[in-house]
């Protein structure tokens, strides 16, 4: 949809809802919030954004580019969040506020979307990340043992980062390479058919090195 970035368009979008009673009710409440937000924004000329935006060079260049490409369409929220996460590694409160302001959406809406999807991290990630697939095929091939071994060795729970911020251990639900289970992604690199031992070795090397 090539919506122009006028407030009317944006509100109209919210008004449309998803065609269900429940969504319409939410839509009405959100519309009110959005109107208020827009008012504040207009009065203060980007008040919230100024607070969100640190002084000096804007760190949001990449995000801005995506925003422009999507013509500030509110439907592009997920894409904008993807681009923000790509830039910062995670979505901070400030980032979400900034996105909310730019798209003229209530912050709660943005937060709601960011928390709904597993792919978005709201916490900063460690220096290295180890993502272990726990999809069905990998589960059958004992990926659980790998997670357990890593948790024990690095004294950290899956989904969290070690205290020294060196290593984050994440769980994925199928990375789409089930024929070569168990699958692990270590700092963006794919490792197939791993064992607890081989993974411990590689992670230890990374963290030390």
């Amino acid at each position: 949809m090539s919506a122009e970035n006028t407030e009317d368009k944006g509100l109209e979008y919210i008004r449309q809802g998803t065609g269900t009673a429940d969504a319409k009710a939410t839509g009405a409440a959100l519309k009110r919030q959005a109107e208020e937000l827009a008012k504040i924004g207009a009065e203060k000329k980007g008040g919230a954004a100024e607070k969100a935006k640190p002084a000096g060079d804007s760190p949001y260049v990449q995000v801005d580019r995506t925003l422009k490409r999507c013509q500030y369409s509110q439907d592009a929220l997920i894409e904008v969040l993807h681009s923000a996460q790509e830039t910062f590694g995670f979505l901070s409160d400030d980032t979400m506020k900034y996105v909310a302001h730019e798209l003229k959406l209530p912050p709660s809406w943005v937060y709601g979307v960011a928390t709904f999807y597993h792919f978005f991290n709201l916490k900063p990630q460690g220096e290295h990340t180890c993502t272990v697939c726990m999809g069905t095929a990998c589960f059958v091939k004992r990926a659980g043992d790998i997670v357990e071994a890593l948790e024990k060795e690095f004294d950290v729970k899956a989904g969290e980062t070690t205290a020294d911020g060196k290593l984050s251990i994440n769980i994925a639900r199928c990375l789409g390479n089930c024929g070569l289970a168990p699958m692990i992604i270590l700092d963006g690199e794919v490792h197939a058919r791993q064992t607890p031992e081989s993974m411990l070795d590689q992670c230890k090397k990374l963290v030390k090195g």
Partner: protein
Amino acid sequence: MTREELQAMAQKEQEKRKAFSCRLLVCYSTPCISSGAEGVRKALVDAVKARNLDAEIDVTCTGCVGPCSRGPLVTVRRAGQEDVIYENVTPEFAVQILAKHALGNEVLTSNVLPKDLPFFAKQLKVVLANSASIDPESLESYVGAGGYTALLKVLEDMTPEQVVDEIKKSGLRGRGGGGFPTGLKWDLVRKAKGDKKYLVANGDEGDPGAYMDRTTMESDPFLVLEGMAIAAYAVGADQGFIYVRAEYPLAAERLRKAIKMAEKAEILGNHIFGSNFNFHIDIRFGAGAFVCGEETALLTSVMGRRGQPYPRPPFPANSGLWGCPTLINNVETFGNIAPIINRGGDWYAGIGTEKSKGTKIFALAGEINNTGLIEVPMGITLREVVFDIGGGIPKGAGFKAAQTGGPSGGCIPAAYLDTPIDYENLAALGSIMGSGGLVIMNDRSCMVDVARFFMDFCRDESCGKCVPCRVGTSQMLRILEKICNGSAVMDDLEKLQEMGKMVQDTSLCGLGFTSPNPVLSTLRYFREEYEAHIRERRCPVGVCQIKEVPLAELMKELPRRIREAAKS
């Protein structure tokens, strides 16, 4: 582009291929890449350059060949000779293939994939027909293999009604899981009132343990685009979206490139093939939510919101994206369209069983010798899939169950290995066809643990909108955990069954009402395992750690624990 230009492009590509004395096809889809295909490709390209063989030897990266566990694969194709496929190729070995086989025409003795491998013999490739031989990043390659003739035929000679009729005649049913007749769905959208209609390809593939859609998009992206364009023409849509999981960056990248190339060649965009038909495609990314595979949730996600389902009706066919009629099909469904138009609905209807026509792609994974991607005619038996194509269970272990349909499906035990695979038969067994994940378990898998795994998945992925699913999955998981740690009593089995029925009957969307399937199907076929956990307080295969006791026995247990603690 015009008809003549398309033909010229195809001809030029074919002549270019003929000019090579030998072609080396490197399998370059995610599984092979993860086992080192990039090194193999580079070694071959460098070696060809170093020896100045550019005019003689062609090195092409292709989509998935199928037996992914044997990767990286290199196929040697010489005119007038049968293809030879090498498995587990290293960069060094690749250079040998070039020197000896490609140049010297001497087939190497090691690492050759046997020609008569049942893995290939029992397959029938329709959607993946070109997967192993064309370059997914080249439009010329696709056109050279007959691509875009179906779209041209549709635009030149067929009315939208005729297209819908042809699809109806083929008997094609949706490959996303539900198996809804595709022709009928198209007819609904075509007849729906509205000036603006949308089309969405579902490439979310949330089923863990399955990667058919990923491979289809990675191996033959133009086939999906062509199918979408034909569908758009048939239903009257002018804007399409492909929804791709964020976990599939390579698939998205190849689709993006394909869209760009197709737009440049003017077979996507305005006035396609000089007609009045306009169609645009955009990519939308998922962000890791299984429920977004469900069609109404997917639509809300395409619109950038929380991917929560909403009640139907209204069906997307009448009110989907931004309230407009919207056609949603799975990417594999779209992959079937061009072949059906090219070869006719009757041809397609000749494959398969009475109610399930055509072929289906399955991703074989788990405890099986040949893991990989297969496309088989409907009606093939599980036994053929597991023991002929799949090569049986490794290390002499026994077959225990085949899990189909992922978290919405069930486990099929050995007694039903001879059932022909189709939508109805699988449903009768308490499972579903699903999108095509087929995870094989050997006799070292505990079925209670498997059921717990799936329930944990559904609890985690439940969007939380309706109570039966949000609370029911948590409660069922709690009981399953109790069974796994030894603190359950026999009554819990009844509770589990009752709750399963309730969740099935009252949930809002497919995620909820299919979530008890893995539990109910394992309860049906492997009840003795559940009972062993509870009555005999042991896990028959030794996976579960039975350490707790039922609440009622805690008084007896406590003194023992205190004594033990005092001792140590």
